[in-house]
């Protein structure tokens, strides 16, 4: 059960947080930005092409080498996690990620919304969350 | 996880009928075009048209995945492809230093059973259809190759050898409007 990376995209499609985890090869900053905006556009197009009414964009995408699970909040911010394809249960992780964001990023008065996240507390708690997750302990919500 | 290269069941037709059909095709082409080189070209073109369709049949039946390199491709062509369609397994040899060229040596060839080339048609590449088939099939899986029979027992050589040269790997075409 390996998580390869965690990413946060703002409403405009800009990457505000991106981190490859563990042994995953690190992407260059430019590549990360390009991939984030690609994902943002794909999200919009897949929603438009839906044969059903009222569709969201991509929530899960699975290939032979990875799986991405994405959650777009009602505010338009997207969180996505990339893991190995056999992975299930990324829902809980995504929810905790959103909680961490709303705590250590949005409640930080010195953080400007939509800008790249440079909050140490967010990093520390995210690392703690990933450690907890990798070791298989249950992820308990803080509220 | 190992990929199983099973050769699936094929419906049988009488091999003599096949040899006769091919022979009469070549004979008619000779009559129509009169020039050996032109017939060679026509056989290659026909082979190409077969190859572009045959590859789908091959992929559908054998469920082969992507090959890692040309060496693997050559083995699959010989041990699965030729085995499946002609019941023979030509030997893969003659690799060049860069691994972009190789030869298939044919010990037997169902197309040429009972055939003898007369003196007047020494330029004829009787089995040239096979060159076209390989070229067409490989083209469809994004490999541009050159194929040619460099030796042929029908023309008096000591062996039948097809040389295959990889020219380039073709990229997937981007749709219009994309870069």
């Amino acid at each position, binding site marked *: 059960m390996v998580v*390869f*990376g965690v990413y946060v995209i703002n409403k405009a499609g800009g990457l505000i947080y991106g981190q*490859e985890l563990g042994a*995953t*090869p690190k*992407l260059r900053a430019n*590549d990360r930005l*390009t*991939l984030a905006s*690609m*994902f943002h*556009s*794909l999200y919009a*197009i*897949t*929603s*438009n*092409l*839906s*044969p*059903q*009414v*009222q*569709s*969201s*964009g*991509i*929530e*899960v*995408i*699975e*290939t*032979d*080498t*990875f799986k*991405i699970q994405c959650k777009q909040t009602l505010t338009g911010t997207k969180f996505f996690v*990339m893991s190995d*394809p056999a992975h299930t249960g990324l829902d809980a992780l995504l929810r905790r990620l959103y909680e961490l964001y709303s705590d250590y990023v949005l409640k930080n008065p010195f953080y400007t919304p939509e800008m790249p996240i440079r909050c140490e507390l967010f990093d520390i708690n995210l690392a703690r969350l990933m450690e907890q997750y990798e070791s298989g302990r249950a992820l308990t919500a803080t509220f | 996880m190992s990929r199983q290269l099973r050769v699936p069941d094929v419906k049988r037709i009488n091999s003599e009928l096949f040899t006769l059909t091919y022979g009469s095709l070549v004979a008619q082409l000779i009559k129509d075009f009169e020039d050996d080189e032109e017939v060679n070209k026509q056989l290659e073109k026909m082979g190409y048209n077969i190859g*572009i*369709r045959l*590859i*789908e*049949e091959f*992929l*559908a*039946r054998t*469920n*082969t*995945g*992507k090959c890692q390199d040309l060496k693997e491709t050559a083995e699959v062509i010989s041990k699965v492809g030729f085995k499946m369609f002609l019941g023979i397994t030509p030997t893969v040899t003659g690799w060049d230093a860069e691994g972009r060229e190789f030869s298939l040596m044919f010990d037997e060839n169902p197309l040429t059973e009972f055939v003898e080339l007369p003196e007047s048609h020494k330029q004829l590449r009787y089995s040239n259809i096979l060159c076209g088939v390989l070229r067409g099939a490989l083209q*469809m*899986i*994004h490999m541009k190759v050159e194929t040619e029979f460099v030796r042929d027992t029908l023309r008096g050589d000591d062996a039948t050898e097809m040389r295959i040269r990889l020219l380039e790997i073709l990229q*997937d*075409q*981007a*749709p*219009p*409007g*994309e870069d």
Partner: protein
Amino acid sequence: MIFNLYIFDRSGTCVYYSEYHRPRKATLSQDEEFKLTYGMLHSIKSFVTRISPKPVREGLHYYKTSTYKLNYFETLTGLKIVLNTDPGVGDIHDLLQQIYSQIYVEYVVKNPLCTPGEKITSELFETRLNALITSLPYFAT
């Protein structure tokens, strides 16, 4: 539930399209929709190749949104079979493989009157395909 099916050839031409259930009517013309769908698939493939931590072999299997699942199958020859279903449908890789090997190869590739690069007009192909799709247990539910 099965929504619709697209088959694209290696150059991006939509050679076959079939609609089974489609609650949301298309906002674009059919040609525009084909182009957009193919362009999107091309972008997803590019995205997948670039972001994948390991070298990609088969590539995209599917993606899911809140209301549909796009199931994808691509052959080595660049033929792309796309089947949109509701998100609850499981892994149908085998079905797509079957559509390719038992219907496309049999009734299109082996039909000398079907020219590569052109729309598939074979009635036999259509009949067999519809028979297969409508026989699936999750066709209408």
